[in-house]
């Protein structure tokens, strides 16, 4: 696959959680209690057999450890870096129950999966050709996980991606202190390494290829097209220094940005994208970075452990403050007009004020684009998300769905699980009665 350019602004970021050395990995893995029916497994959306992969590191069987991870989650390398382990596996480690430091499962998973990538271990081969064809719409984690599992069963797979890079938000959106874009591309290559996955880049569905065309060419369709563009407060049009946060993050992850004139930056929102954005702006050298959120510090949707890290890095929070409009001068915003909010996030009358800024990122969510499937009769959409059963089946025969376009925007590991499980369901559908 094509590579992202070498000259990317994200290159300045170091890993927030450093990789383990061999000695560190062994010391940490030997601390694992090797619980039976362990809660960490249940906390993982892909139910990786965590105690087993950790024990294998401790015995020096790193290859077997990596296979245990990939058997459950072919995107185990990126998940090791980007998963919010503090609220998933690590958060449920039994050591927490006695106030002992929990096992650093994410760092151990990174150790084993990195070792697999570095050594070039390959664990999976495509199954014998079934003659069945599956289209995966979107080139992000959900489609990659689905495509890989479908190839293991011998179905031929074509991925349709409207951009010219694969990996979805793993490539274009993950905070670079967790994973940089080139590492996501390493993972794409690793997944595609199973062979037989055709990739059509720069092709939009249903714009360039219609649903009818897809259904005539393929025996099943997996929808993994993710979320749409950033949402906005209103009034941003034409302001050169106001950006959607997801869009801005993609810019500096895949190319260069010039922030040399930015003294004061505001990020509007209180979710994880907002926290990523403030930390990234600090890392890119902006000295005064503030996050403006309409609720309290405790009520923000973003993870507390991430916000804590942001504060340590020098970011400030502006609480109970809601943006209303922009102060504009010659096509640039000079500040954001805000009102204060009360405990129930209602605007306090007469509290209007302006917070000066020379860069504003808007991180109040991404559009849900379930309407893309309007041409597929039987596929239901609620609140912009595609509706499926637990297996990933939509209301239309042969059409399955997983990832952000189904769950509304969760973690990479949720997309990996939904893609994998949808592939199982598609396989059962395609081979039904045989």
């Amino acid at each position, binding site marked *: 696959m094509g590579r992202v350019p070498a000259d990317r602004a994200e290159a300045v970021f170091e890993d927030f959680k450093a990789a383990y050395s061999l000695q560190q990995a062994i010391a940490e893995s*030997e601390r694992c*209690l090797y*619980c039976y029916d362990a809660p960490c497994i249940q906390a993982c959306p892909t139910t990786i057999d965590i105690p087993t992969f950790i024990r294998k590191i401790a015995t020096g069987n790193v290859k077997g450890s990596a296979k245990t991870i990939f058997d459950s989650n072919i995107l185990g390398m990126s998940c090791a870096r980007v998963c919010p382990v503090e609220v998933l596996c690590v958060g449920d480690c039994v050591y927490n129950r006695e106030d002992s430091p929990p096992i650093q499962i994410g760092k151990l998973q990174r150790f084993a999966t990195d070792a697999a990538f570095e050594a070039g271990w390959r664990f999976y081969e495509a199954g014998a050709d079934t003659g069945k064809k599956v289209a995966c719409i979107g080139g992000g984690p959900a489609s990659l996980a689905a495509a890989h599992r479908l190839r293991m069963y011998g179905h031929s797979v074509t991925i349709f991606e409207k951009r010219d890079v694969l990996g979805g938000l793993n490539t274009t959106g993950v905070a670079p202190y967790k994973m940089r874009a080139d590492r996501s591309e390493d993972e794409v290559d690793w997944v595609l390494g199973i062979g037989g996955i055709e990739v059509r880049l720069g092709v939009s569905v249903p714009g360039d290829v219609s649903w009818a065309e897809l259904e005539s060419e393929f025996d099943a369709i997996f929808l993994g097209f993710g979320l749409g563009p950033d949402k906005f407060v209103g009034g941003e049009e034409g302001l050169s220094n106001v950006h959607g946060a997801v869009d801005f993050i993609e810019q500096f992850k895949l190319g260069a940005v010039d922030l040399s004139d930015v003294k004061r930056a505001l990020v509007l929102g209180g979710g994880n994208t907002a926290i990523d954005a403030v930390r990234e702006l600090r890392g890119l050298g902006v000295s005064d970075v503030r996050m403006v959120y309409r609720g309290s510090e405790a009520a923000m949707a973003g993870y507390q452990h991430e916000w804590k890290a942001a504060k340590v890095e020098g970011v400030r929070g502006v609480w109970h403050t809601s943006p209303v409009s922009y102060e504009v001068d010659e096509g640039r915003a000079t500040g954001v007009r805000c009102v204060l909010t009360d405990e129930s996030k209602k605007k306090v009358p007469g509290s209007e004020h302006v917070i000066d800024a020379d860069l504003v990122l808007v991180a109040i969510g991404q559009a849900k684009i379930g309407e893309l499937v309007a041409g597929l009769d039987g596929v239901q959409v609620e609140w912009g998300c595609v509706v499926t059963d637990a297996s990933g089946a939509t209301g239309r025969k042969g059409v399955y769905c997983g990832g952000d376009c189904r769950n509304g925007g969760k973690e990479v590991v949720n997309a990996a699980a939904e893609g994998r499980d949808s592939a199982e369901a598609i396989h059962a559908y395609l081979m039904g009665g045989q």
Partner: protein
Amino acid sequence: MGVDLTSNTAGIISPNPFWLASAPPANSGAQVMRAFDAGWGGAVWKTLGTPIQNVSSRFGAIKWKGNAGVGFNNIELITDRPLDVNFREIAEVKKRYPKHAVIVSLMVETRDEWREIIKRSEDAGADGLELNFGCPHGMCERGMGSAVGQEPAVNERITSWAKEFATVPVLVKLTPNVGDIVPHGLAAQRGGADGVSLINTIKSIIGIDLDTLVPQPTVGPKSTNGGYCGAAVRPIALHMVAALARDPRFNVPISGIGGVTNWRDALEFILLGSSSVQVCTEVMLRGYRIVEDMIEGLETWMEEKGFQSLDQVVGKSVPAYSEWGDLDLNYEIVAKIDANTCIGCNRCMVACHDGAHQCIHPNPNGIQPIVDEDECVGCNLCQIVCPVPDCIQMVKVDNGYTPATWNDHVNDGAALRPKKGAH
């Protein structure tokens, strides 16, 4: 401190019971003097005999959870330094440290050689002699070390030579590479030994280099069996010490050796009948400094338990070491899990289910497994695997049966409680 740690092993007096064993840490005068400065009460000098030539490498270790040396092995032989240098240094140590015990370990072949080396040892000021009848590698191939210790008649004869020539106390160091230690202790006693020391190392192969396929310690393309020691051998050593200590025919003092890493380990040897305790491996791994904690720990324990002198402690646990047939079969305990401290790791459950008697089950209403006390046989495997201190207790059950041993049952028809978990 109101506690007297003075140790008396067959007339060899030391300010405390902690001696360096005959090994690399007691190889030279400079080392032994540093050890005495650190607090060691005695030292058994690295075995003297005809100086040998050693190989490289010499040591191997079992690594467990990041800690190398829980089991340890060596293929080093007796001293490789000239005898006159050794004796000069022994004399120097005794001159500077008159109150510390210096015991000289010896290994030679002929009667004349024994006479000669004993005289030179005593002339240097040795407080006692230790006859090395235990080394299981290299020297035994030349008819010495464990080759002597494994033959009671040879053991007795050479011991009697030493006793004939010696004026200071003679300890015989026994090899564990025998089926039953008792006949060998009795042989030394018959030869006139003033005491015994045990165990020497256990014949072993510590491991194999999985890249070169050569066993360890690796000497070029080959290796050889070595002597196993370190913490892992302690249970074997404790049993052998206790087997002699409780034998009514055996009545000379014991210097205990084998896997002592701290004061607790040392105390176990003392409780099973050792008047002094010798340490090698832990000193090799961590240095002489460990003795400070050993002295403090033993003193504090004795104070807390109300002992004033070491001889009150020596052998205190021997009466509790019984034959199986004299254990009370009606003594019943069951596991109790403390729901407040349980962290829900389920290790007790899988251990009981796969490795014991299937009486710990998942709790439908919580994270804490449930013990079926009607089925619990009281084996305590769950307590061993539980990572939380004191979370699982083995609690006595009053089953109404009077105590009865197997021997009571067989000889007198004493009633036994119904068996649990045997269906």
